[in-house]
C-alpha cells in the first residue's frame, strides 16, 4: 500500500516537473523570438513630465498618469489592515516589562532616530529621485517592528485614532479627488500649478498609513502567536 502511493507520488512529481519545464521552454522561445516593443511610450511620458509637478518619471507615472492604480492600491492595503485588525485586538497584551537595556533596545535607540530621518528624506526626494511613499513607509515600518521586538509599546490599535491613522492614505486621496473635482470637474486631474504639493500631501499621509498597516500585520502574528 505504502509503496504504491509512493510510486504514484513519484510519477505525479515527474509529470508536474516535465509539464512546468515544457511551459518554461515555450515561454523562453517566445521571449527569444519576439522582440520587445518599441519604446514609444517613454517619449510621451517625458514630453508631459513638466505638467505633472514632479520630475521623477516613475513618481509621475505612479501618482499622476496612473494615479488611479495607486488609489486602488491604498484600498487593497486598507482592506488587509481591516481584515487583520481583529486578530490583534483578540490577544491579551502581556504586561510589558522594559527589561533593563536589552540588546534590541540598545540597537533601537541608535537606529530609530536615524531611520525616521532617512524615511523623511526618502519621502521628500521622491519627486526628483527614486524614492517616495512606499519606500519611506517600509523604513518606518521597520522602525516600528524593531521597537516592538524591544517590547516598547508603540501603537495601540484599539482606539479610533489608530483606525484613522490606518485609513489616512485612502482618506487623503479621496479628499484630494473631491477638492480637484470641485475645481476642474474631472476625475483625478491634478492642476499643473499645485500638482506637486497635492502629490506630496497624498504621499505624506500614505506613508504613515502604509507603515501602520505593515506594522499591524507583523504585530498580529508576533503577539498572537505567543
Amino acid at each position, binding site marked *: 500500500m505504502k509503496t504504491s502511493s509512493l510510486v504514484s507520488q513519484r510519477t505525479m512529481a515527474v509529470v508536474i516537473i516535465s509539464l512546468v519545464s515544457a511551459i518554461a521552454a*515555450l*515561454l523562453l*522561445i*517566445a*521571449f527569444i*523570438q*519576439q522582440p*520587445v*516593443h*518599441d*519604446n*514609444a*511610450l517613454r517619449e*510621451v*511620458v517625458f514630453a*508631459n513630465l513638466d505638467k505633472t509637478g514632479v520630475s521623477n518619471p516613475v513618481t509621475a507615472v505612479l501618482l*499622476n*498618469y*496612473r*494615479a*488611479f*492604480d495607486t488609489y*486602488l*492600491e491604498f*484600498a*487593497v492595503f*486598507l*482592506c*488587509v489592515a*481591516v*481584515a487583520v485588525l*481583529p486578530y490583534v485586538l483578540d490577544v491579551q497584551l502581556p504586561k510589558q516589562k522594559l527589561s533593563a537595556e536589552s540588546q534590541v533596545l540598545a540597537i533601537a535607540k541608535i537606529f530609530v532616530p536615524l531611520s525616521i530621518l532617512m524615511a523623511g528624506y526618502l519621502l521628500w526626494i521622491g519627486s526628483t529621485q527614486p524614492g517616495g511613499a512606499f519606500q519611506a513607509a517600509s523604513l518606518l515600518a521597520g522602525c516600528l517592528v524593531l521597537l516592538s521586538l524591544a517590547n516598547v509599546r508603540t501603537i495601540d490599535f484599539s482606539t*479610533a485614532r489608530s*483606525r*484613522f491613522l*490606518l*485609513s489616512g492614505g*485612502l*482618506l487623503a486621496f*479621496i479628499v484630494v*479627488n473631491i477638492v480637484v*473635482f470641485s475645481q476642474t*470637474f*474631472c*476625475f*483625478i*486631474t*491634478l492642476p499643473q500649478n499645485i500638482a506637486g504639493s497635492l502629490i506630496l500631501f497624498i504621499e505624506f499621509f500614505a506613508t504613515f498609513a502604509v507603515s501602520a498597516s505593515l506594522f499591524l500585520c507583523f504585530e498580529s502574528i508576533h503577539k498572537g502567536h505567543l
Partner: protein
Amino acid sequence: MHSSFYAISIALLLTLPLIAAILCFVVNSIKVKRYLSVLFAIVLVFICVAQASYVFENDEPLQLVVGEWLPPLGIKLVLDGFSSVMLLMTSIIGLAITFYSTHYFESDDKESRFWPLWWFLITALFGVFVSSDIFNTYIMLELLGLASVSLIAIQGTQKALQASYQYLLVGLLGSLFYLLGVAIIYRTYGVLDNELIAQLAQNNLSTKLALAFITLGMMMKCALFPLHFWLPEAHSNASAPVSAILSALVIKAAFFILFKFWFEILTPVVTVFAVSLIGCLGAAAIIYGSYRAFTAPRLKLLVAYSTVAQIGYLFVAFPLMIVTPEITRTAVIYFIVAHGCAKAAMFLSAGTIQKAVGHDNLADLKGIAVHLPLSIFIFAVTSTSLIGLPPSGGFIAKWLMLNNAVQAGQWWWVVTLFIGGLLASAYLFRVLNLAFTTPEQESLLDVNYSEKKLLGAAGLAIITIIIGLNAIWLTSMIASNA
C-alpha cells in the same frame, strides 16, 4: 443631462463605496454602520439605473478618461452594454444582501468586521466591470480576492479558516498567472489599454502564451472544472450573505474578464480547437457538479456544487461564440443575470434555514416547509430558474443557447444542455421533496423564526421570473447594444 455628467458618475461608483468602507471602519456604533450601508446601497442602485438607461437609450458606451491623460499614457474607464448590465446586477443584488445582513449576524463583533470588507468587495466588483486597462484590472482582481478571503474568514471556525486559506492560495496563483499574461502583452505591444491592444494584436507565440496564462488564471478564479476544488468548501463554510455575493457575482467577474479577453481583446489568437476544449471542460463541469450536488449531505454544500455545475453552462457558450457571436453574447448575459439573482436568493434562503434550525444537514430537514414557508417558496422559485423551467429567466437563457446550438448544428452541446437541465432538476427536487414530506416523529424542530429579512431575497426571486416574462424587451435591448 449631457454625457459628461454620466461619465463622472463612473467616478462616483468607485469613490462612494470606498467612503462607505472607511466610515464603516472608523465609526464604532453598529447601528450607524447598518443605516449608512443601506443608504449607500440605495444611492448606488439609483446611479447604476441612470447609467444603464443612458447606455441603452443612446446606444453608445460611456467613457471616462482618468486624469485627462489619454491611453496609452493614462487609464480609461468604459461602460458598454455588458458592463452596465453587470453593474446594475451588482447594485441590486448588493442592496438585497445589505438588507439581509442587517438582521443576520448573531454577534455585533462579526457584523462590525463584515461591513467595511463588504464595501471593499463592492468597490472591486464595480472596478472590474468598468476598467478598460489590463493592469488596472489586475489590481481590482486582487482587491476582489483579498476582500472575499477576508469575508470568508470572518466566520472564525476551523473549517472556514482553512477554506479561506485555500481560496487565498488559489486566488493569488490565479492573479499571478493573469499578471504574467499582462507582462507578456506589455513586453510584446507596449500598451496596456484594451482597445489599443485589440488594434495591435497579432497571432504570434507570445500572444498565444499570454492568452493561455490569463485563461489558466481566470479558470482558477471562476472555478471551472478541474480547478474548482476550492469552491465547495469556501462557499459552504462562509456566512450566508458572503456565500450569496461570492456565487452570484465574484465568480462572474472572473468570467467577465475571460470573456472580454477571448472575444474582444485577443481575438486573432482564438482557434476552434481552443474554444472546443473550453466547451468540453464546461460540459464536464455540468455533469460533475450536478453529480456531487446530488450526493451532497448538506444544503449549502449542495448549492455550492450547483454553482460549479452552472458555471459550466457559461463555458459551453464559448464554442457557440465562434459561430453566432451576437445571439450567444445575449444568451450569456441573460444567463449571468438569471443565475446571479437565483443563486443569491437561494443562498440567502438557505442561510435562513440554517439559522432557524441550527444546522443544514439535509437528512434532518424533513418537513421544514411548514415552519419556514417564505424560505422554501424562494428556494422553489429560484430552482425553477436554475433548472430552466418557464416562465423563469433561466428558461429564456437556456432556450437562447439551445436555439443557438441547434442553428449552428452542434448537436453535442444540445445534448449537454438537456442533460444539465435534467441533472439540476434531480438535485433540486431532492431538497424540495425533503422540505415537503411530513416527518415521522413529532416535530423535533422548534422553529419560531421571523423571515422578514428575506424580503430582499424574495425581490431577487421575483426578478428571475420577471426577466423570464419580459424576455423580448430585455433581449432586444441587450442585443442591440452589447
